[in-house]
């Protein structure tokens, strides 16, 4: 059912029946280290290039989600997946062997939100019984594409983030009484450009988009922060969180205790030197599948607004002096009472 301006409420909420998360060594050493399904010690994932490594990461994660859910591959009708690389090469090469019809998505670091939005719409509408939503990022491929070669020495400002090497995948199935969690509604974000030009401060570029989507969700569903146990953004980091909380406070919403951010949860900035926090599609996706969904499943949190955030940074537009617009997609995830 269409709700408000940008939201959908699912009368028969699609259910997350399986999840998998695979991350790299550094993420495994972080605060969430023990929660991931697999911590791969080899950042090359057995491949000979970084791009192939990220493809292997996607393939392994998808296979694991299928295996954990005891689902037959041929029953998954569509795959909604994406990554950060040009022409989505991690996804396009990584998912060849899956032989599942693919929608390749680019939403920068918000991709998991976009995949869950589209995946749950597809399932709820009856166009598929099962779909998979997946997103990945790799520190080395992202550095190579957006910043500098790994061997180049440089100093990173304190507002910069650290791209997560990780992948998260979920399998959504049509409404039923059991499962990990249910997706009860979505609020799709729109582009928000506040004129930020500093690619080393993506939290500031994305925070207004997160604010906009959360506010839109509140308006569309006629709810406020009390409706949720947690509101979890993707990769705003410390700077972005500060800005989001300030913006929400100005609107009369106090998110101080219920807000957290995947980028803040996944690394320990003091011991891991990650500055503002983690980022990348894999940040929100792997945190969702290791930390957030289990807590919803066991009932610690009954209702969560998951808001992956993306900074639509391009090296071309950046060099041409353009700003960095942001986007954030809201997904309402709820506990299933058995």
């Amino acid at each position, binding site marked *: 059912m269409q709700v408000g301006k940008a939201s959908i409420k699912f009368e028969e909420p699609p259910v997350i029946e399986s999840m998998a998360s695979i991350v790299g060594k550094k993420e495994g050493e972080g605060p969430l280290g023990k929660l991931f399904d697999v911590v791969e010690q080899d950042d090359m994932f057995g491949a000979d290039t970084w791009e192939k490594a990220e493809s292997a990461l996607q393939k392994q994660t998808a296979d694991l989600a299928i295996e954990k859910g005891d689902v037959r591959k041929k029953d998954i009708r569509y795959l909604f997946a994406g990554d950060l690389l040009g022409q989505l090469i991690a996804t396009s090469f990584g998912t060849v062997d899956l032989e599942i019809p693919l929608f390749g998505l680019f939403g920068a670091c918000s991709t998991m939100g976009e995949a869950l939005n589209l995946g749950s719409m597809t399932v709820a509408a009856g166009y598929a019984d099962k779909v998979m939503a997946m997103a990945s990022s790799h520190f080395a491929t992202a550095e190579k594409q957006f910043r*500098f070669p*790994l*061997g*180049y*020495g*440089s100093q990173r400002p304190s507002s910069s983030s650290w791209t997560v090497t990780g992948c998260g995948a979920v399998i959504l199935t049509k409404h039923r009484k059991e499962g990990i969690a249910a997706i009860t509604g979505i609020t799709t974000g729109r582009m928000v450009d506040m*004129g930020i030009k500093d690619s080393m401060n993506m939290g*500031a570029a994305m925070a*207004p988009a997160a604010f906009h989507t959360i506010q839109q969700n509140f308006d569309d569903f006629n709810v406020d922060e009390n409706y949720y146990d947690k509101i979890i953004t993707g990769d705003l980091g410390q700077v972005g969180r500060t800005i989001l909380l300030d913006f929400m406070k100005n609107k009369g919403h106090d998110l101080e205790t219920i807000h957290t951010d995947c980028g803040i949860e996944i690394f320990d900035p003091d011991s891991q030197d990650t500055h503002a926090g983690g980022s990348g599609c894999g940040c929100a996706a792997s945190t969702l599948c290791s930390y957030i969904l289990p807590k919803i499943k066991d009932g610690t949190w009954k209702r969560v607004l998951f808001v992956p955030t993306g900074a639509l940074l391009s090296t071309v537009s950046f060099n041409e002096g353009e700003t960095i617009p942001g986007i954030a997609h809201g997904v309402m995830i709820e506990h299933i009472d058995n």
Partner: protein
Amino acid sequence: MEVNKKAYEAYVKEVTPVNKKLPNIIKAFLVGGIICTIGQICTTLIMNQGVEKDTASAWTTLILIAASVILTGLNIYPKITKFGGAGALVPITGFANSVVAPAVEFKAEGQVFGIGCKIFTIAGPVILYGILSSWILGVIAYVLKAFGIV
């Protein structure tokens, strides 16, 4: 949105932590100084072997570049720069690092389109504008000399 872009920019500046200047300056001075001291030790040792100063300087440059190349390959030079900042970027070792790093990274894309096209992605501007500015200065010096000013 009710906040305008200019106000937002000022607000972001306010909430974004800045790197501490003084410790960075001290670290840069220390690292830069150590690299230069190593260079001086090399020059002095080579000159002690009875080599001319110009030749000794050329050998020193070669040694520093070779050291930086090896340290980049071993992934140690980025750590030195992370600590020392401009102290490690400005000396010739930093320049060597900026050439080797892309070469290592883009090797997978082939000898021509990988290493060949991308080896100077970071150092290219330094080379181009370095040559351009020395050409301009050369022209100025030539003109001043022609008019007997210098």
